[in-house]
């Protein structure tokens, strides 16, 4: 089969130099093209879009009449930037007034896998129904697989009105 032989041993074009120049050129050019398409494509897919500012402080209500050490779930609406849209979404926070008058607002999700936890009066703990994580009234993990204390909202007080900012992890990073 003569054709198979030509396939197995491609003949020289005109010297090995010319051949290797062509081959090197082909690889180089395709390398450049792949890089100049790949780099912007990766940036496009993996870098965060230019941030538009979310609404910063939300007034969630008056906290004058909160009973100390009695967590209350407070609901509020916030505008969130979602791609090309701004969506108004309902959020909740577990607000706790300490006997000394300080206020904390915990995020409503368990730090383990994101289930919604709730305040259990009898146990006096936040209970996650999914994997039985328990959190004390100051948000610390008391039991279970939760890896870190409850997330907290940034807090500002305007007289007796409670204003909430971003939800942050205990280390201070935004969630």
């Amino acid at each position, binding site marked *: 089969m003569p054709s198979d032989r030509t396939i197995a041993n491609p003949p020289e074009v005109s010297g090995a130099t010319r051949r290797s120049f062509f081959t090197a050129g082909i690889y180089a050019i395709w390398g450049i093209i792949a890089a100049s398409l790949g780099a912007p494509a990766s940036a496009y897919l993996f870098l965060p879009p230019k941030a538009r500012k979310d609404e910063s402080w939300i007034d969630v209500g008056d906290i004058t009449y909160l009973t100390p050490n009695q967590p209350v779930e407070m609901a509020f609406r916030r505008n969130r930037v979602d791609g090309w*849209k701004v969506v108004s979404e309902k959020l909740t926070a577990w607000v706790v007034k300490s006997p000394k008058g300080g206020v904390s607002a915990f995020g409503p999700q368990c730090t383990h896998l994101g289930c919604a936890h709730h305040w259990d009066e009898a146990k006096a703990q936040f209970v996650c129904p999914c994997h039985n994580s328990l959190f004390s009234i100051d948000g610390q993990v008391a039991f279970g697989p939760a890896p870190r204390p409850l997330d907290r909202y940034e807090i500002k007080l305007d007289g007796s009105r409670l204003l909430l900012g971003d939800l942050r992890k205990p280390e201070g990073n935004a969630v």
Partner: protein
Amino acid sequence: MKPRFEAVVAWLEHRTGIHTALRKALYEEIPGSSGWRQVFGSVAAFLFLVQAFTGILLAFNYAPTPGDAYNSLRYIVTEVTGGRLIRGLHHWGASMIIVVVVLHMIQVFLYGAYKKPREATWILGVALFLLTLAYGLTGYLLPWDNRAYWGTVVVTQIAGQAPMLGPYLTRLLGGVGGIGVVTFARFYGMHVLLLPPATIALIAGHVYLVRKHGVTPIPADENLPSKHFHPGQTFKDTVAIFIAFAILFTMAVAVRVPLEQLADPSDTTYIPRPEWYFLFLFQTLKLFSGPLEVLGAVVLPGLAVLALILIPFIDRSRMVKVTRRVTAFAFVALAAIGWTGLTATAIVTTPHPDQAAQIDYSGPTEWLQLSPAELAGVASFRQERCADCHGTGPDGARLGPDLTRTSIRRDAAWMIEHFKHPAALRPGSSMPPIEVSGPQLNSLAAFLLRLNPTNASALQNAPDFASKGAVVYQAAHCDMCHKINGAGMLAGPPLNGLSKRRSRGWVEMHFADPQKLVPGSVMPAYKLPPQDLENLTSYLFSLPEK
């Protein structure tokens, strides 16, 4: 390492035969005369891949409905990293692929490469050409701006004129009762679901036939030794692809693809024009009127396509040297002249859209929300070159404080005093006093009080006509009677959305003599210098509807 790699290749070869297949493809024998003229097919195939790649990326951030398309595309070009570049590549790639496909066809036509036994290759090629046009037609709608909307209105109307098929085509394109969600879904479906697989299938068939019949030899080829496709021809193809890619990339970076206003079906002032490669058809259409219109819209283009398909059957002569194919050259020259003439006429006769000032919505448009006083402040900010010392944003100059970030805890009165005598209020300040008129100082203070990192884009993006127009507006105290963006009085009509209510000519005449056009109007006449009048009117026409 090397033996292991070879072992993998051998394993793969044994299971799939891919190595042999690849070598067979690469070392195919081609005629000795082959060379640079045969690169266009490869370039077209490459550009198709670029379109597919960038198209998929765009689809990752794009919502194909009339409600969201425009906003999601704006999001891509203004907020997503690299989005403007990806869109630029897709937009200019679409034009470029048409150019390359046509060059490919011209080359094949001039050399008579469509002749027996390559008729089927040619016909598949014509089909691919039509597919390329179909991409352009369906993709044109997807930005859902005015240009897209009105261009598509015309296209669906033309389709509706097709003899007998008209009503069915209209139904198929979802154009019954106007362009809306249905048309949009169909165009998008065609553009991303129907056309790409069809293209891939046709390219596969086309390439298979090219391989089956071999690259077309020219009459003197018997005397030359045949060559191998690789690496000589692959290198030429690669270089040509690189040149095309470099041009495309440069255009995508350097030439901004405009995004017009959101599609507005009630806009009676918009002058629709198709993409440049369809302009000749558009112009042809104008040569026919009344009952003959169907001739220019459907029959003539249909016959042209038919003629294109039948070329191999019309010209059945033997292969001759390309230099002796005078008729073919004459034909191409004639077509080129005709095409150029029609396209040029279409461009020249396009009225300048002076109704609404042209605004590029693919940039941030926060400036549209500023009050006239604040916008006039932008003009002063530029005129006094404040940015030379007071940078805004991360790469701005840092001689003076960044005015967007220092929270200005001052009122307008303090600022105006500070503008006049910087060192008096801030001892040691090296800022020179600002020497503009009183009202302009007010404007500048008003603008700086509003300035924050979000709307600082107005400093770069507000067009000159708008900021200068706003200066004229302030100087003439228009705000004593009129309201723009919530600022001003209501003795006269509010001016937002003026372009929807009045023509530009009317407004300019109205400045000169209000009572002539609106009897009983209390507005005084304004004799403005031409440049001021131009800027003011353009500015007023750019105002969004509230």
